[in-house]
């Protein structure tokens, strides 16, 4: 295991930004893992979404299946299974969530250089002490494109990623 995970890029923000782009992803690995630790300077639960577009594709080319739960909700929730979206969604904390916390997310991309549609799965959490907004999320989906994944563009629903937010991309080799 130790010999198969490689750091491709790491971005830790030194100032607030509205967009983070990871570009020039080499095609020399088998799979990719993107790890995100993010917080936003906006407020309100609708600002907790972070949208990840592959190759900056904003078309309705992403199919998703989603299970999630959130503070104040009752039971698990389901979304998707049919239809498409325009990005992959993960989460971040914001000024309405617990202070001094960052959300955590991981997206695993299988076979990102193959000529087939690209499958991905992600887990994300915006932590909570149960007094503020929190969410736990489990997504899977497919990007309906035969293109090689060469860039990832991440944008918050509103506001900016704050200083200290981190975006790390790993390459995984099967040999």
């Amino acid at each position, binding site marked *: 295991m130790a010999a198969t*995970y490689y750091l491709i890029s790491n971005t830790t923000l030194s100032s607030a930004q509205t967009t983070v782009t990871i570009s020039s992803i080499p095609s020399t690995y088998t799979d990719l893992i993107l790890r995100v630790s993010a917080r936003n300077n906006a407020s309100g639960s609708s600002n907790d979404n972070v949208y990840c577009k592959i190759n900056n594709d904003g078309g309705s080319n992403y199919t998703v299946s989603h299970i999630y739960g959130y503070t104040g909700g009752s039971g*698990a929730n389901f979304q998707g299974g049919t239809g498409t979206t325009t990005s992959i969604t993960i989460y971040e904390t914001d000024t309405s969530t617990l202070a001094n916390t960052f959300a955590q997310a991981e997206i695993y991309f299988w076979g990102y250089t193959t000529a087939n549609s690209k499958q991905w799965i992600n887990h994300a959490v915006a932590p909570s002490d149960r007094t503020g907004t929190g969410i736990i999320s489990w997504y899977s989906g497919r990007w309906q494109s035969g293109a090689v994944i060469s860039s990832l563009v991440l944008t918050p629903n509103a506001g900016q990623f704050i200083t200290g937010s981190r975006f790390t991309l790993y390459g995984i080799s099967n040999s």
Partner: protein
Amino acid sequence: MPTYEPIATTTLGSNTANYTFSSIPNTYKDLVLVGRCEMTGAGSTVYCQLNGDTSSNYYQMVIERQWTVSSISYIASGPNTGFGLYGWSNGYPGNNYSFMFETHFNNYAGSTKKTILTESAAGSAPSTYVAQGLYASMWNSTAAISSIKIYNNAAADLFQTGTMFTLWGLK
């Protein structure tokens, strides 16, 4: 440059109530704890505590499906004295089961409160009972994580010989 480095690993040589990784270096971005466990009993809930903190400083959100239950559950809890890695204590099919987990400690050496994400899966042989869950935990502390204790809430239920825990550091 390989980025996963094993910090420590153990395979238990005897039945054990708990195991602690200590003196964790603060030189990585994140930590990943992997466990493959077999238990001597049934009905266990396996927890973690960090830096020996036994106070009610842990919160958790869980999505899980247990054994023969047909629906998926969402559970929020806290403050607790530890955070769960596995907790299918209801409706378990017997004591001949094992489970595995992978836990990510985000920015463990930083000065923010700690976000922790765990995937767990369990099975019971020779039956076909299985369960799986996603656990999101938060340690309400800004201290760097320097030790991790893994333990069971049922004192009579031990980690069996052969249980394996490995701690990885991510550069």
